[in-house]
């Protein structure tokens, strides 16, 4: 819609080389600054916030949200949304946990099965949205309930108990780290960097922005809109599969039905706080990673300061409002300039 105004004005300028967006945006720098200030303050006012025993578990908690957030960023850039990730997490997690308990599958099989299942769920969403042409929130709200139904069926009125330690390489314990870096977080960073490169440097990545800016214009410009949209949901589904493994590892040896509940909102919060426009057309995966770190910093910080737990909700809510507010203000300023 209005985002498009920028594109023609840039196009009039005679440019010899490709125009690339800046590698990092203002919002990301602001987030880095906010996180840095919070970490310093927490380092001063708590006994051990900046110690490895605190930062390592924090990064383990960040990993699944940021990882799935990468996929969610792709989707929101195309002006879509996926509120089914909570249900999809529950289904992937319970199937994987059952495989581990009943068949004692090795690590690669568990991860591959979870990611394959997630991919299928993502393809279901993507196909319905890209080719059914129904708004993403309607489709994914429907599939959220359906995924949750299947998850509860697999749970079969019981928790999954005595999950073996196979997935502990992604957990908070000693086996979950190499040189002090949690594996789940390292994998997340790798995925974020790949996604950042894809969005910035490949035609496919730029097409996602074009679709979110104005899908019709993108189609007329020769972008294959439907396969690109399908891809965004498929990537999200696959990352949900991996994220579900991270969540099993970050939980206990028992998996209960609450595993996915509310996660979709946590992921969307990280994406929005990270500066991705909910209207589509603009966004950054690095912002999403920073958004997830900020949310977990606030949650951990509130606990470590001994403040009442509900303050974390207040702060996260304020961050969302501030992030969306500045986004809209910037949008207005841009429109005025154009």
């Amino acid at each position: 819609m209005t985002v498009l105004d920028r594109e023609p004005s840039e196009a009039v300028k005679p440019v010899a080389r490709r125009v690339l967006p800046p590698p990092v945006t203002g919002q990301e720098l602001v987030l880095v600054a906010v996180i840095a200030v919070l970490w310093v303050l927490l380092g001063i006012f708590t006994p051990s916030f900046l110690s490895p025993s605190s930062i390592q578990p924090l990064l383990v908690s960040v990993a699944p949200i940021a990882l799935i957030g990468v996929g969610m960023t792709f989707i929101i850039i195309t002006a879509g949304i996926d509120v089914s990730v909570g249900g999809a997490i529950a289904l992937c997690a319970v199937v994987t946990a059952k495989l581990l308990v009943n068949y004692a599958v090795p690590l690669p099989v568990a991860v591959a099965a979870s990611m394959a299942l997630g991919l299928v769920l993502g393809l279901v969403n993507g196909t319905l949205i890209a080719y059914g042409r129904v708004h993403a929130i309607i489709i994914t709200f429907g599939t959220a309930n359906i995924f949750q139904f299947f998850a509860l069926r697999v749970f079969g009125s019981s928790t999954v108990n005595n999950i073996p330690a196979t997935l502990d390489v992604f957990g908070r314990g000693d086996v979950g780290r190499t040189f002090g870096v949690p594996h789940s977080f390292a994998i997340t960073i790798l995925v974020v960097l790949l996604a950042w490169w894809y969005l910035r440097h490949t035609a496919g990545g730029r097409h996602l922005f074009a679709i979110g800016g104005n899908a019709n214009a993108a189609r007329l410009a020769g972008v294959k809109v439907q396969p690109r949209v399908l891809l965004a949901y498929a990537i999200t589904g696959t990352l949900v599969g991996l994220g579900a493994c991270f969540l099993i590892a970050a939980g206990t040896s028992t998996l209960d039905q609450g595993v996915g509940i509310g996660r979709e909102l946590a992921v969307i919060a990280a994406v929005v706080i990270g500066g991705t426009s909910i209207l589509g057309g603009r966004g950054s995966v690095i912002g999403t990673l920073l958004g997830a770190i900020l949310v977990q910093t606030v949650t951990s910080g509130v606990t470590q300061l001994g403040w009442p737990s509900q303050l974390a909700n207040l702060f996260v809510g304020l961050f969302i409002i501030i992030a969306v507010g500045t986004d809209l203000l910037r949008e207005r300023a841009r429109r005025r300039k154009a």
Partner: protein
Amino acid sequence: MLKRKALAVGALALSAALLTTACTSRGNPNDTSADSDSGGSAGDQVAVAFVPKLQGIPYFEAMNAGGQSAAKELGIEWLYQGPTTADAAAQADIVRSFIQQKVDALIVAPNDPDSMAPLLQEAADAGIAVGTSDTDAPNSVREVFVNQASVEGIGQGLTDALLEAMGGSGKYAIVSCGETAANLNAWIDVQKAYTAEKYPDAEIVDIVYAGEDQAAATSMATDLMNAHPDLTGLVGECTSSAPGVAQAVSDAGKTGTVFTVGLGTPQSMKPYLEDGSSSASILWDVEALGYLTAWAGLQLVEGNEFQATNKVSDDLPEVEYDAENKVLLLGPPLRITTENVDDFDY
């Protein structure tokens, strides 16, 4: 253009509506295959309906199992249905549907006692015997509350088990779940008072709320250990945080330095009891609670008065009744350790 704008606004409004009602609609009972194996109309059998806070978790499924075995022995029909999330509105819908079905007795474990009270009044007006079990709705017309254990029993049981492991002194913290859960908050009040009174060298340094989220409970327990380097105890106040605090201690390599107890279901606590990261789990015999609930429903329908002590079954020979508050008490809480954890299959 105008049309598209209207559509967009409509979609936005709809999505907002969907998001805000997400909990409620997802809480709708989608699992109607709930266990009414006698099916169809009850005939002349007494129908006792029980509405748990949520169904599909081991705790309430164990209650259901107990209710079913009571139904078989007592010759009544046991109906069991609850929401799939602990949601007061979804639970209210189920209660209404049982009122419409004109069951003989309706027993609820309310998610929100205050909003359940008018519904219980409605049921009583329709001639249905009403009661509560597991969680009370004190300001309602319920004729009996089937209490799993006294508030003092649980609070003191948790405190004694933890302080025994901690050697009678030290700092500890509590990871609770829902901030508004009346029973959890009542237990915590007892823990505070009892700790101050019986263990003057022990101190509760913080109480945090993780919701019903295992990963959050684990991460908050980790934060508490970092915030209080001299912490030697953690309590997991509900079935999701009890294994969570033990996992956090085990992950941090502090087994034997930081001790934990909690209200966990036996099978979920077993690995932690075995590796020593959990010292004990305090619970009650959940199946017996289900049995007692079904029995109490039948007594209400038949108009039998409760005695000061009641012989319910061979396993429940002496159930105490507090006539003033209309409370049936299952008995003292159980302490589950490595010794007896295998006696329970839930």
